C-alpha cells in the first residue's frame, strides 16, 4: 500500500513535471512564433511597396540642345545667387544651371557624370558651388527625404556612389544597413510616410481646405529664420558635419576625386566656388570655427594640384549682410548684383 502510494506520488510528480515541461515548451513556441512573425511580416507584406525611383535624364537632351559654354552645379546656394539671364547678358555666353535645393556632393557628382558627361557636351568650365566641408561629408543629404532625388539622378548601378557612401564597404554597420534596406524595403518609404502624416495634420487644421497656400505660407512665416532666438541662430550657423582638419582625397571618402578623374578623362575643366555664408559679425565678416581654415587650405591645395580651379568668396567684402534673405541664401532682389560681382571677379576665366 505504502509502496503504491509512493509510486502514485511519483507518478503525479512526473505528470506535473511533464505538464510543466509541456507548458514551458508551448510558451517557448509562442514566443518564437511571435518573434518570427514580428520580424518577417513587415518584410513579406511590403516587399514591392517601395522601389528605386527611375532615372531622370531629362537634362541630357536639354544640355545637348543648348551646348552651354558654362555649366553650374549646386544647391539652393547656387539657385539663390546666380541669375542666368544676367550672366548670359554680361558675358555673352550660354549658361546651364543644375541647381537642386537640398542637394549635396553625392547629388552633384551624379549630375556631373550622368548629365553633363553623358550628354557629351564640352562646356568651357563646370562650376561647382559648395559650402565649408561639404566635399568631406559625402553622406550629407543622401538619406530620408533626399533619397528620392538622389535615386532620380542615379543609374541602376553606381559603383562610385556605393563606394563613397559605404554601401559596398566591408564595415559591419554598412553591411547591416544595406541588408536591412533589402530585407525591409518599407524603410525606404520613411520620408514619404512622414510627409503623408504631416499632410494629414495639415488637412485637419481648421481653414486649411479653404486657404491652402495661405496656411502653408503662415506656417513658413512663423518659423522664418528671422524669428529665431539669437542663441539658436548662432548654433544653426555653426559648421555642421565631420570636423575634419584636412581634406582627405581618398576616393572612398569624397566624391571630389571621382569628379576630378572623370573631368580629366573627358577634358572638362572644373572650378570649385566656395560661397560666402551669412555674415555673422556686424562688419559683414563671416566668423567660422578656427579649424575650418586649415581644412579649406588643404582642399584648395589639392584641387589646384589636380588642375581644378578654386575660388573662395568667404572674405569678399562686396557681399554684405544686406544682400542676404534667410540663412545663407541671397535675396531675390540681390541676385543680379551678386551675378554682376561674380562675373567681375571671375573675369578672364569666363572669356
Amino acid at each position: 500500500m505504502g509502496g503504491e502510494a509512493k509510486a502514485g506520488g511519483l507518478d503525479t510528480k512526473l505528470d506535473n513535471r511533464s505538464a510543466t515541461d509541456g507548458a514551458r515548451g508551448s510558451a517557448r513556441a509562442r514566443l518564437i512564433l511571435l518573434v518570427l512573425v514580428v520580424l518577417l511580416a513587415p518584410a513579406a507584406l511590403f516587399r514591392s511597396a517601395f522601389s528605386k525611383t527611375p532615372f531622370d535624364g531629362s537634362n541630357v537632351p536639354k544640355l545637348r540642345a543648348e551646348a552651354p559654354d558654362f555649366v553650374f552645379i549646386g544647391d539652393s546656394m547656387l539657385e539663390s545667387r546666380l541669375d542666368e539671364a544676367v550672366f548670359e547678358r554680361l558675358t555673352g555666353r550660354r549658361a546651364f544651371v543644375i541647381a537642386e535645393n537640398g542637394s549635396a556632393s553625392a547629388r552633384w557628382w551624379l549630375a556631373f557624370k550622368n548629365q553633363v558627361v553623358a550628354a557629351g557636351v564640352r562646356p568651357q568650365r563646370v562650376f561647382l558651388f559648395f559650402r565649408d566641408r561639404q566635399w568631406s561629408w559625402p553622406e550629407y543629404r543622401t538619406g530620408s527625404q533626399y533619397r528620392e532625388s538622389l535615386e532620380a539622378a542615379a543609374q541602376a548601378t553606381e559603383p562610385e556612389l556605393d563606394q563613397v557612401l559605404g554601401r559596398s564597404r566591408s564595415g559591419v554597420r554598412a553591411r547591416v544597413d544595406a541588408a536591412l534596406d533589402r530585407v525591409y524595403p518599407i524603410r525606404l518609404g520613411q520620408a514619404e510616410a512622414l510627409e503623408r502624416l504631416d499632410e494629414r495634420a495639415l488637412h485637419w487644421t481648421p481653414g486649411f481646405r479653404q486657404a491652402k497656400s495661405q496656411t502653408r505660407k503662415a506656417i513658413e512665416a512663423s518659423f522664418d529664420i528671422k524669428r529665431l532666438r539669437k542663441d539658436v541662430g548662432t548654433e544653426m550657423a555653426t559648421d555642421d558635419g565631420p570636423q575634419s582638419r584636412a581634406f582627405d582625397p581618398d576616393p572612398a571618402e569624397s566624391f571630389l576625386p571621382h569628379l576630378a578623374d572623370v573631368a580629366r578623362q573627358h577634358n572638362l575643366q572644373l572650378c570649385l566656388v566656395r560661397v560666402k555664408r551669412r555674415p555673422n559679425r556686424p562688419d559683414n565678416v563671416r566668423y567660422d570655427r578656427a579649424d575650418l581654415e586649415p581644412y579649406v587650405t588643404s582642399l584648395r591645395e589639392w584641387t589646384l594640384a589636380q588642375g581644378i580651379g578654386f575660388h573662395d568668396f568667404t572674405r569678399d567684402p562686396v557681399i554684405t549682410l544686406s544682400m542676404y534673405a534667410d540663412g545663407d541664401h541671397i535675396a531675390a532682389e540681390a541676385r543680379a548684383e551678386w551675378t554682376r560681382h561674380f562675373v567681375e571677379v571671375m573675369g578672364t576665366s569666363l572669356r
Partner: protein
Amino acid sequence: MIFHSFDFLVFFALVLVLYWRLPHRSQNLFLIGSSWFFYGYVHWWFLAPLAFTAGMDYLVARGIERWPKHKTPLLCLSLCASLGLLGFFKYYNFFADNFSVAFRSLGLEVSDLTLQIFLPVGISFYTFQSIGYVVDVHRGKARAVRSFSDYLLYSAFFPQLVAGPIERSTHLLPQIQQARHLDWDGARGAVLLILWGFFKKLVIADNVAVTANRVFALEQPAFPVLWAGVFAFAVQIFADFSAYTDIARGSARLLGFDLMENFRHPYLARSPQEFWQRWHISLSTWFRDYVYIPLGGSRAGPGRVVFNLLFTFLLSGLWHGASWNYVLWGLWYGVLVVIYRAASAVVPKRVSESRWLAFPRWLLMFTLILIGWLLFRETQTAQLVRYLTLDPFAAKGSDWTVGGYLFNSVLLISLPIWIHHLAGCLPAATWPRIETARPLPAYVAQVIAGVAMFTGILVLRSRVTSDFIYFQF
C-alpha cells in the same frame, strides 16, 4: 552605450545568449562585466565615480551592521561622500555661478569660479539607489550584503543604470542573490515591452521633438504656437522617458529580473498627488521614503507639512538639474500639492469625486502639467517670463491656424500613447483576465501589436534621433 543603437542590439543579443548558459554565480559576475562595459563604452572614466560610490557604500553598510553604535556617523560619511561626488559633478558650476553673481551684485569683484566639468551620465540615478540601500541598512530594513560582487551588480545593473528605475535594495538585491529562471510567457511580454519602448522613442518622442524644438527656438512665438510646442514637449518627455523605462524593464525581464514600474498613465492624473503617483514613480517614492517621511511627513502640524512638501518638491526639482527652472518646476508641484490638499479639506468628497467633475478636473490638471513642462523646458528665466506673459488675445488668426496645425501633427503621431492611456482607464486586471479566458485571441492581438510597432519603427522613425532626455540628469 545607448539603447537605440546598433551597438546595444549586438551587445544585448550576445549578453543574452551567453548569460543563460552560465550558472547563477557566474551569471552575476558576467553581468557586472557586461554592465561596466556598457557604462564605460564611450568614456571609461565614467566607471571611476561608479566604482567609488559602490565600494564606499558596500563598506559603510557592512560597518553599520558590525558597529551599530557608530551607525549614524557612518551613514553621514556615506551621504557626504555620495552627495559630495554628485554635488561636484552636477551642482558645482551652478552654485559657483550664482555665488559670483551674488557677490558682483554687492559690488565685489570675483574671478570666474566655474570649471569645465563633464557630467557622468546616470550619476543621479545610481547615487540615489546607493543612498537608499545605506539608509535601509541604517534603519534595519535591509541586511548589509556580504558578497561584494552582489553589491557591484546592484549598483551597476546595466538595464537601469543610466536612467532608472531607481531600484530599492529590498526589491533588487534578493533577485541578485537568488537563482533566476527564464519565464517564457514573461519573455513574450518583455519582447513586446521593448518594442513598445523603441516605438515610443524612435517614432513618437523623436518626431514630436522636432516640433517642440522648432517652437522653443522662436524668439517670440504667438500664444497658440507656444502652447502647441509645450504640448509637443509634454508628449516628447513622456514618450522618451517611459520608453527608456520600458526598454530597461523588458531587457531586465529577459535576464530574469523584475524592475519596478515607473509610469502609470501619468496624463490621466486629476490632481498633482495623483500625477506623482503615476510619473517617475521610483523617484517620487524615493523622495517620499527618504526625505518627506523623515522630515515628519503629513503627521506634523499644518505649517510643518507645508514646509515638508515644498522642501521635498524643491529637492526633487533640483535633482533634475542644476538650473533655476528645475527648482521652479519642483516648487510649482509643491505649491500645487499644498493648494489641492487645502482644497480637499474644504470641498466635500462627494463633490470633488463626483463623476461629473472628472473631466473638468482632468482638464485642469493637464493644463497645470503643461505649465509645469514649460517651466521644465525653458532654462532662461527672461524668456520664461516672456512666455508666461504672452497675451492670447494678441494672437492673429494665422497664429491660431499654425498652432492648430502643430497640435494636430503632435496628436496624430502620438495617437498610440493616448490610446494606451485610455486603456489605463480600465481596471488593472482586465488584460490578465482576457489572457486567461481567451488565450488565442489575446495572443493574436499581441502578435498584431508587435507587427504594427515594428512596422511603425521601420517606416515612421524620425529623421532626427536624439539622446534620451533623462540622460542629462
